[in-house]
């Protein structure tokens, strides 16, 4: 008799414990996901971006009425920075994405300049140009490979197993530079041309977020997300003119 009561009590306890911890932090009373958003700015003088001469590839040169600029430091109004990857570096669950990320070669440029994706997320690389490109992601933690992709080829499909910021280049077209930001989290955002970023869908709690810019390095901040709330977090990088 006593044994049976005890085991029923144990089962009830275990189920409720499971419900409160595993079934999601949003279960039970009204907990809603929160957001972190902010603006990335810089102080000092950033390097001037230069126009790209595509004369060696006429099929690409003619796609740009005015020459495109190099993209290492993309600046926006109010001293803001574009293409900064902001991501949760501590406090988060791991990567979850299964839909492919995409990377395009168009007009002899990489679009987007910085492609953020998750560890083990499929990546599809397209060549929309009339010239061959070779995709050469210069990975150090992941494998470094180099493949040719003639026009009209099907997309290259790859995945990366380790979190890493990988510079990507085309050897045939030396002005082409881009990045794969392979991240170990599903919460990340690449800042837009006004320097704004938004991390959505975060369970309330404490997080460490990191901002990465290809020339200026990384910065981190500790942030607390409240239920259904929006937490502001801004980053300021010190720009150097070279």
């Amino acid at each position, binding site marked *: 008799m006593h044994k049976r009561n005890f085991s029923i009590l144990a089962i009830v306890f275990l189920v409720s414990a499971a419900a409160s911890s595993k079934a999601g932090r949003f279960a039970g009373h009204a907990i809603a996901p929160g957001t972190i958003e902010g603006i990335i700015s810089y102080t000092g003088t950033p390097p001037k971006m230069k126009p790209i001469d595509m004369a*060696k590839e*006429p*099929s690409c040169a003619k796609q740009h009425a005015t020459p495109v600029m190099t993209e290492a430091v993309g600046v926006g109004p109010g001293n803001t920075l574009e293409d900064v990857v902001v991501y949760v570096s501590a406090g988060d669950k791991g990567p979850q994405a299964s839909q492919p990320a995409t990377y395009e070669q168009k007009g002899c440029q990489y679009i987007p300049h910085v492609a953020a994706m998750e560890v083990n997320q499929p990546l599809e690389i397209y060549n929309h140009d*009339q*010239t*061959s490109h*070779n*995709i*050469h992601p*210069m990975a*150090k933690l992941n*494998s*470094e*490979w*180099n*493949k*040719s*992709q*003639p026009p009209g*080829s099907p997309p*290259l499909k790859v995945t990366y197993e380790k979190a890493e910021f990988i510079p990507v280049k085309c*050897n*045939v*077209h*030396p002005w082409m530079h881009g990045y794969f930001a392979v991240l170990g989290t599903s919460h990340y955002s690449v800042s837009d041309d006004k320097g704004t970023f938004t991390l959505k869908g975060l369970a309330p709690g404490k997080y460490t977020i990191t901002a990465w810019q290809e020339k200026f390095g990384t910065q981190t901040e500790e942030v607390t997300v409240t239920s259904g709330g929006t937490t502001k977090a801004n980053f300021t990088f010190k720009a150097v003119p070279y």
Partner: protein
Amino acid sequence: MRLGTLRKKFVSNLSVILLAAAATALPAQEARVGNLDGHAAAGKKEYRRYCVGCHGPGGDGLGENAQWIDPKPRDFTAAVFKCRSTPTGTLPTDDDLGNSIHRGFVTTNMPSWLPLTGQVRADLVAYIKTFSPRWSQGHGTPIAVPPETPTTVESMLRGRVLFQKMECWKCHGPAGHGDGPSASTLTDSKDNPIHPYNFSTGTRFKCGETNQDLYRVFMTGLDGTPMPSFADNLKPAEAWDLVHFLRTLQPLKTPEAMAWKTWLQTHGSTLTPIGPEAQQP
């Protein structure tokens, strides 16, 4: 003997055999080159004698000679290798590494180490693999090199079309002189300037001399350099066509070059030049 005792004996014998097999299984840093087992402990002593001057005590290519030589010595800590029988992005086999040591790299400071015995070579391969943890993943699966197709002028002409279409000329130049429009800006994965192969002065390749070696060059890519793999873009028969055409660019009396030379005398004027003009769609 009773059946029960027989079974017990069988099980105990089997477990002894399995235990022995597990004990002799090769750990990650050992090697097998040809039919010889290489051992890293022995290889370390030999490395200190033969290799350290260029490749450095840390295997990172920063030996004391490195500053004066070009191309730079291989950085074994990066675990990226040029001459492989395995696909791009994968590690070479132990035989690939042993062949590289034996053959050396023509036109570079890496000599062909013919005086080394096979055992020394196998030991060196085992030691080289201790410089990077990536070796615990194992090497790639060697690509299949199907039998060579017949060496005909038609094959060479098809190869010539591929040389144009795959845009080899953009680096290697229309006549394979290493003077294509992109040649002057090429850098390797360490950002050192690097030249594309010049077929008109080269006789051997860094990764071998035979048609099979040439096949592997563009079907596995030369990792760490601008030379990509075309394995996704060429069928094996097309790859052989390209091999046959590339041989016509070299100053050698190969069967391909001789047949091509004869054919050119009567048909040379029918060829459209390779290069940007031929690219217009």
